[in-house]
């Protein structure tokens, strides 16, 4: 097995494309310096080899992973591909080399750096997907629901099943601004497409009212005397706030009525400043 320190693989960015890079690497008995996708433009002194996506080769690799390592390993590799791990392609390649050497037990080698890096990236993906199942905020446009998210990881393929089950008859769109991907769903069917840009329509009056009510609920449900900004930040990192309805402060969400008197009197300083 020779290293190819002056060689870079370039693929189309798809998972099958990545599997073909794995095929190429094993077939040529070489490890490239980097694996980059078409989306990345890199001025390079090194030789770039275009790896063409070929369904047959990709299937052969995937079948080999399941048979010679395990289905669990296949899932790990696919999830790692969706993660925002830097140079994930190379890490995946290294993991598979290890996997084909040790078989199923590679999944238990949790203290090995290659395995650990992949697991860590997948945990990051799963955690972000878990957060976004809750943090996605839809707006209603004449019965269709539209949301924008800005995740670090490519979470749409992970969270789509949840939302398809949540709205079995619904029509909804989730726009991933980071990866320029749109999940389109209608009547339980869905697909993810690449877009250049996506601008949601202007919210109507009804929509604005529900936003206001939600914001009011949010502001009212917190128990004064227990404010804990650090704890909130830990659970709901600030980078998600931009797309959270309740964290916006439009002028039309100021209190219309006072909270019940007993909650504001006695307990808080007269100035109302805290």
């Amino acid at each position, binding site marked *: 097995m020779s290293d190819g320190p002056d060689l870079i693989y370039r693929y189309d960015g798809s998972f099958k494309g990545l599997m073909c890079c794995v095929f190429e690497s094993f077939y040529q008995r070489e490890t490239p310096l980097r694996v980059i996708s078409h989306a990345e433009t890199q001025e390079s002194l090194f030789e770039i080899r275009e790896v063409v996506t070929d369904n047959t080769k990709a299937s052969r690799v995937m079948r080999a992973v399941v048979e010679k390592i395990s289905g669990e390993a296949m899932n790990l590799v696919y999830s790692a591909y969706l993660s925002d791990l830097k140079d994930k392609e190379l890490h995946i390649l290294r993991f598979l080399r290890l996997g084909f050497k040790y078989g199923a*037990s590679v999944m*238990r*080698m*949790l*203290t090995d750096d290659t395995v*650990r890096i992949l697991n860590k990236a997948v945990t990051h993906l799963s955690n972000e997907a*878990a957060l976004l*199942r*809750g*943090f*996605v*905020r*839809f*707006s*209603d446009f004449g019965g269709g*629901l539209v949301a924008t998210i800005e995740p670090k990881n490519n979470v749409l393929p992970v969270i789509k099943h*949840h939302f*398809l*089950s*949540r*709205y*079995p*008859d*619904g029509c909804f769109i989730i726009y991933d601004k980071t990866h320029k991907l749109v999940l389109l769903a209608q009547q*339980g069917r869905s697909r993810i497409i690449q877009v250049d840009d996506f601008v949601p329509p202007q919210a109507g009056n009804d929509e604005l*009212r*529900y936003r*206001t*009510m*939600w914001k*009011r*609920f*949010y502001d*009212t*449900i*917190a*128990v004064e*005397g*227990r*404010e*804990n*900004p*650090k*704890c*909130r930040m*830990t*659970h*709901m990192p600030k980078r998600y706030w931009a797309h*959270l*309805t*309740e964290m916006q402060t439009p002028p039309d969400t100021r209190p*219309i*009525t006072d*909270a*019940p*008197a*007993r*909650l504001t009197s*006695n*307990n808080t300083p007269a100035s109302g400043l805290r």
Partner: protein
Amino acid sequence: MVYIDVIEKLTILTAAAKYDVACTSSGAERRGQKGGIGNASAAGICHSFAADGRCITLLKVLMSNSCVFDCSYCVNRRSNDTKRATFEPRELADLTIQFYRRNYIEGLFLSSGVIRNPDYTCEQMIKILEILRYEYRFGGYIHAKAIPGADELLIRRMGLLADRMSVNIELPSQKSLQLLAPDKNKDNILKPMGLIRQSITESRTELVRYKSAPQFAPAGQSTQIIIGATPETDYQILNLAAALYKKYELKRVFYSAYMPVVEGKNLPSLTTKPPLLREHRLYQADWLLRFYKFDASELLDEKNPNFNPFVDPKCSWALAHLDSFPVDVNTAPYETLLRVPGIGVKSAQRIIKARRAGPLNFDGLKKLGVVMKRAQYFILCSGRGMEGLKISHDSILRGLLSDRSMQLMEGSSGEQLSLFDDTTVTRGDIIKCLTGQI
């Protein structure tokens, strides 16, 4: 719907519901159905976090804050001069669906003050749930509070519509109940709890026989205990919780540090700070009961009836049982690993998995997420201890204290000291107390 009206009601009825601390949507797993809306996921989903750092998962409101009862700790008591409001069943059902569609919430947490009488209140609540389940074919999560004193049949009907039911104990002893909630007694709290437990068990047996049998509260039942309004010790409270888990098969017991929101002759004064640290320690101990296979009697007893403010209950236990350590991470069973400070459920599982691929060393443990600062004093790797480790009471103590407790010991501002009940302890006292020399 009349918007101003609804938003005012929402404000009043949210403010009145927020002292109920239960905030989970877990325990039910259900796929969305064609022709309906909503699913449920067993782990629960947090949709937001309020300024107090707590998870928001359900639209938590009262149906009404009018109440015929006069429990002195409660903001909705009859004699309290406050704005009252009541949701129309359809109004609240529609609001729930609209919030749900926008992914603001996982579902509804419905409770209520007692209007007219418990039966009437219960019927009105059922109306809301029926609109949701039958008209909208809502498959999201519903947590409903049983109204003590309501007819058995109504409680049963409610349980068939809800995922989780709860009856709040609120005060941890009959004596305290008499003092602060003269209209309630132990029996009319425990009776619906028993009924719910029985209905859940029956429903499970029926499900074995008929797959389509309706499920009664598939996510189980929970309760809430107020901490610090009355003089019960942690020992009494934890024993009560352990008994509830065993006898009533509760899924969760929630602990709520008492917030003085109303004045009353039998209540702590309005300037009392909520005992947040005590609440925190009770939750830690609750976790030890539910996930770490501890028994309540191992954590506290009549001689030591309260938790140590400086170290968590697990470390406290470890310090009092130094003779059970060190344990070898390469051979110790899962249950033993769970008892090591610095090893949690996840890292214990990882250790079990990883050691099948080869023996673990200290460097490897760190990679598995073990908190070495704590764990190092209690473990061996293949018979060997951590190199250069000094084991003395003082060093173990330093390892186990959180940064905040450490600051406290080293003498810090009064602000932080006020978190703790008794502030006159010295460093020497703490060491003695931690090492069981008292």
